């Protein structure tokens, strides 16, 4: 069941995507523009499975420069339900940042 859950975050730039090049378990989806509009350069949505949550955590850590943050992700559950989740992370004195971010992302979901 854990493997069927996915986590998404948008707004990744091309350079974010390039940094993820070696990450497995990660899918990148290009954000589209409405037809006929003039938009900002392409951004991507990163979709990760539970197995690749550390990649998402590393991205969030870099995005917020290692500081406390509140960010928004979308969780797609095995039954197709989509949940917009706010992730709030504060630095921990005892736990490595990436693993504590993973915990903040997972919330009450079992791994």
């Amino acid at each position, binding site marked *: 069941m854990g493997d069927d859950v996915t986590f*998404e*975050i*948008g*707004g990744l*730039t*091309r*350079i*974010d995507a*390039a*940094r993820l090049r070696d990450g497995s378990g990660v899918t990148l989806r290009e*954000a*589209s*523009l*409405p*037809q*006929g*509009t*003039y*938009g*900002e*350069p*392409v*951004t991507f*949505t990163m979709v990760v499975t539970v197995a690749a949550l550390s990649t998402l955590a590393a991205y969030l850590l*870099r*995005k917020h*420069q290692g500081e406390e943050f509140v*960010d*928004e992700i*979308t969780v797609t559950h095995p039954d197709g339900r989509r949940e917009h989740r706010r992730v709030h992370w504060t630095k921990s004195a005892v736990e490595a940042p990436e693993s504590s971010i993973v915990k903040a992302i997972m919330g009450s979901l079992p791994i």
Partner: protein
Amino acid sequence: MANDRSFADPLSSSVLFTAYDLKRGLGDLLVQRLPYIALPQVLHELTHQWCFNSVVGRAITYLLFRAQREAALGDPKKRVWRDANRAETIQHILLPLAEGMALFAEHDLYPGSVESTSRPLLACAPLVHFTLSDPQKPRPKWDNLTEKLLAARMRSAHRDRKASLLLEPLTSHASPYGLGYLTIKALQVQGAQREQRLLDSDLFLQVIHGYFYEDWGLVAKLLAEDSANEDDAPQHLLRYLGTRLDRFAQSIDSRAIDAFIDRCLNHSKQRPIFECEVNGLDYSFWVDEFETSPVNEGRSKLTALMQDALDLLAINDGRLENLVPTQLFINASAPLITLGGADVVARRLPHHLMLMMNDAVPSAILPYSGMLPVGWEGTLRVVAALIIEHASHIVLMFDGEKLVGNVGFDALRKRLPDHQNHLDLIANPMLDPRERSEVGSLLREVIQERVGDISVRCQDEIGYEIDSIYLSAFEFMHGHRGAAASIIATLPRHTLLDLLNNNVELAESAALASLLSASPVMLSRSPTDPAKLNEHITIVNRQLAPLFGFPPIAVSQTNDLLYSAV
């Protein structure tokens, strides 16, 4: 919202920002403060809006208005396809230029040293929070804007956006951004070789806007009545823009720049105004052309087009009764951009209106004596907008269709007593960007139902030819055409990163060097190790020089960053 891309829709004159959440930033906007982190993206979209409101932008919009009306009437004059095709084709051809200018505004634009100021900067300036570091010595607002822009651009998120430009494919059919941005930077290098004042980013952007978008020659070409050879129209327009790109540097000299600045400032009442009246309504507007043109063909054709596109009497035909008011609203609201729209819970207090960000924390408490009764509670649609020409910021609050409160709008009405009808038109909940972008889609459908999807067709036909006219701008140092194109063709992804051997760190350093070189003020402390930055710049220059014909990042003998062509 954080997952979407910001965009501007030329058809509905709407802009959707993702730089910040209006609801969270509402308190700031209600006291007319734009979060500094939003400045680069706001400048990007304001530049698009500036181009939409040029003579070329208006000719495109009015061609589409006319095509929409005639499509709804069954295409009686058999020109829906021609009008729509011309509009879509020129938009497609101009797309790299438009995006290049907007990206230049986002990454490079600063207040300059000449008296004339570009519209995007003018519109932003009043919104930058003004602080006094020394109460005895107030600092000019412009210095504050410069520092805010530099601070916004030094954030890692912005540096990543800049670095990502080096990963954009340099082919227009894949992406207009990299090609367009490098073309604009190349034009600045070309122009500055003839007139150094063009290193002033604000002056340069005004010149580019005047040269390409306030070009009566292009308007005449676009509106030419040569229907016998309509299939050749894309080629004619391509060739015209290619010639304009090739001729840009030749048009630059000291006298031309001085004359342009004088006209823009209008001290001697020389600023050209295009006068047009339709059904007794005044549709005049200023035209900041770089080269004054005595030929009137473009002007007369635009006048005739506007008579068709803005005719109020057409509303008497039942088939146009919804379309005509929509088009008139779009036209009236074109001079402003909306920063955001949000549904906000509100409560009317005895002398105030309380707007809630969420149930617990108030966003703002405003003095209020409007029509909402004391004790009223509900949800208001709140829209924040910038009126570009007047550099005015307004916040409008709607209860359903009714305007029930505002910040700045009443003051604007007092300042512009002759514009009451126009202001009445724009005080409309359709200003909400969440609604306006829907309007653009609906208007496109009116034409598509008649003649099919023209945008796809024109992209297929001329996609590859667009590249060569833009690449010629940054082939000027090579001395022969095709040099840059042949290099790009060998690259696996057609990106500058390919030339940097996929070294992301080099791209990051090139981006930082470029952002620092554009700033007229220096940072007190380098954001990165200076020795490492210099080392990376040396490598970047060596690896990109074959494409540009010169090292693209110019560094002085004392290691000061002078200029970047990337």
